[in-house]
């Protein structure tokens, strides 16, 4: 599939995470599995494919864990990952769109779990609310709206285009080559990446919130009545030193004292996201707002538009019409027009 890189360092990085052999073997296996699992008319192949794919996924993930047993993630990671990927597999393999959508919800929820594992609580719940709550419901609506009336010859009321995958081999090959290449690159590069922040870097926001600091200190019993977090004379900022982990308290007019950072005083995820969003990336919010507005307008415009049959459809229908007319003894469009007059 892909050649193992000759670069020692990159190779080493790759080896340190996962044996290339395992990776590529898993990819090949996964490709075969997914290929088999994709929707097809033949019954019974899909479960086998799913199984193979699962084995391949397990092989890769376990290989990954085995190589880094010290840094293995939480058990929940495995649970959520299996659920998420399994759901994803079903999304793409299930022949019924409704079920695909439901499996997608499963994937979303599992992903939200992963987010929780990554201490992104806000994002996890936002994901569930937005995706599972809103977007997927829309999808379900549309699926309901846009399902053909079942005809007799159709398989279990399924549309033609849902029954069979299109060019499954090419797609899986492309997909898994991409996966292999991407993983290789990710693993190679990961050895050189170092974390930017440290454990305290999230606490910066706390320094901007003297009221919250006072509440925590009061709960801890450090803050005495009459005391407040001291403010800098010049800038007016609260004298909270995140790095030195000290807080200056002022009582009365000028008496100040230094207290250590209480352990329970930590920034919450929501606070962090809020600060990052507003403080660092205000443009993102603006753009997101504009996009949403546009989407709303677009949706309104689109849904208001009267649907016209397009030319091809018109001609198709005209043909059918003409055929039926010729069958009745009239000939050609002139006859149609004549009929129109009549």
């Amino acid at each position, binding site marked *: 599939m892909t050649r193992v890189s000759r670069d020692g360092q990159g190779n080493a990085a790759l080896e340190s995470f996962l044996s290339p052999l395992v990776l590529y073997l898993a990819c090949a296996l996964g490709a075969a599995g997914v290929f088999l699992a994709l929707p097809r008319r033949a019954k019974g192949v899909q479960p086998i494919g799913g199984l193979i794919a699962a084995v391949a996924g397990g092989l890769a993930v376990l290989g990954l864990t085995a190589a880094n047993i010290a840094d293995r993630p939480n058990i929940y990671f495995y649970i959520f990952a299996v659920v*998420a990927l399994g759901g994803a597999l079903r999304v793409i393999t299930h022949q019924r769109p409704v079920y695909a959508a439901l499996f997608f919800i499963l994937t979303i929820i599992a992903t939200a779990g*992963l987010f929780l594992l990554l*201490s992104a609580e806000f994002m996890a719940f936002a994901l569930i609310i937005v995706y599972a709550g809103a977007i997927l419901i829309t999808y379900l609506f549309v699926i309901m709206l846009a399902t053909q009336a079942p005809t007799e010859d159709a398989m279990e009321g399924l549309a033609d*285009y849902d029954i069979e995958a299109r060019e499954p081999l090419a797609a899986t090959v492309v997909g898994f080559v991409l996966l292999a290449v991407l*993983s290789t690159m990710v693993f190679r590069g990961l050895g050189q990446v170092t*974390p930017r922040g440290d454990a305290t870097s999230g606490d910066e926001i706390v320094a901007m919130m003297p009221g919250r600091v006072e509440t925590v200190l009061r709960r801890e019993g450090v803050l005495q009545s009459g005391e407040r977090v001291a403010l800098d004379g010049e800038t007016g900022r609260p004298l909270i030193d995140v790095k030195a982990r000290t807080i200056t308290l002022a009582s009365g007019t000028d008496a100040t004292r230094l207290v250590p950072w209480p352990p329970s005083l930590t920034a919450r995820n929501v606070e962090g996201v809020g600060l990052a969003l507003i403080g660092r990336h205000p443009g*993102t919010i603006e753009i997101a707002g504009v996009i949403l507005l546009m989407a709303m307008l677009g949706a309104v415009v689109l849904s208001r538009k009267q649907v016209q049959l397009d030319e091809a459809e018109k001609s198709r229908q005209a043909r059918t019409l003409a055929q039926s007319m010729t069958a009745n003894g009239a000939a050609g469009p002139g006859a149609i027009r004549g009929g129109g007059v009549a």
Partner: protein
Amino acid sequence: MSATFDPLMVTIAQAGAPAPMAGATLAHYLFVSAVMFALGLIGFLTRRNLIIMFLCTELMFQAAGIALIAFSRFHLNHTGETFVIFVLTVAAAEAAMALALVVLLFRRRESLDAEQWDEMSG
């Protein structure tokens, strides 16, 4: 992330006081992300139902989201999360627009088959 495996943890969240995350842990998440992306891609390429194709794009969004959040956690900042919000927004907008279009298209051809639409054929 704590180095010890504690199955009795009350909360599944590893939040609290976030400790630095190891590169190898990150690798797990990224791999999951990559696999999900690949699955989404394969789905997009193989399924002919317009709605499922859009679902597959959503899958790819999710994959990107996982990677972003994992990196966010790894670097101990919130930039990645911020961008996931952005991704969410785009996904929502896309869903609104795309689904509206799908409905329109469906009404024209009475079909959700993507292969019905080949006007750009040369």
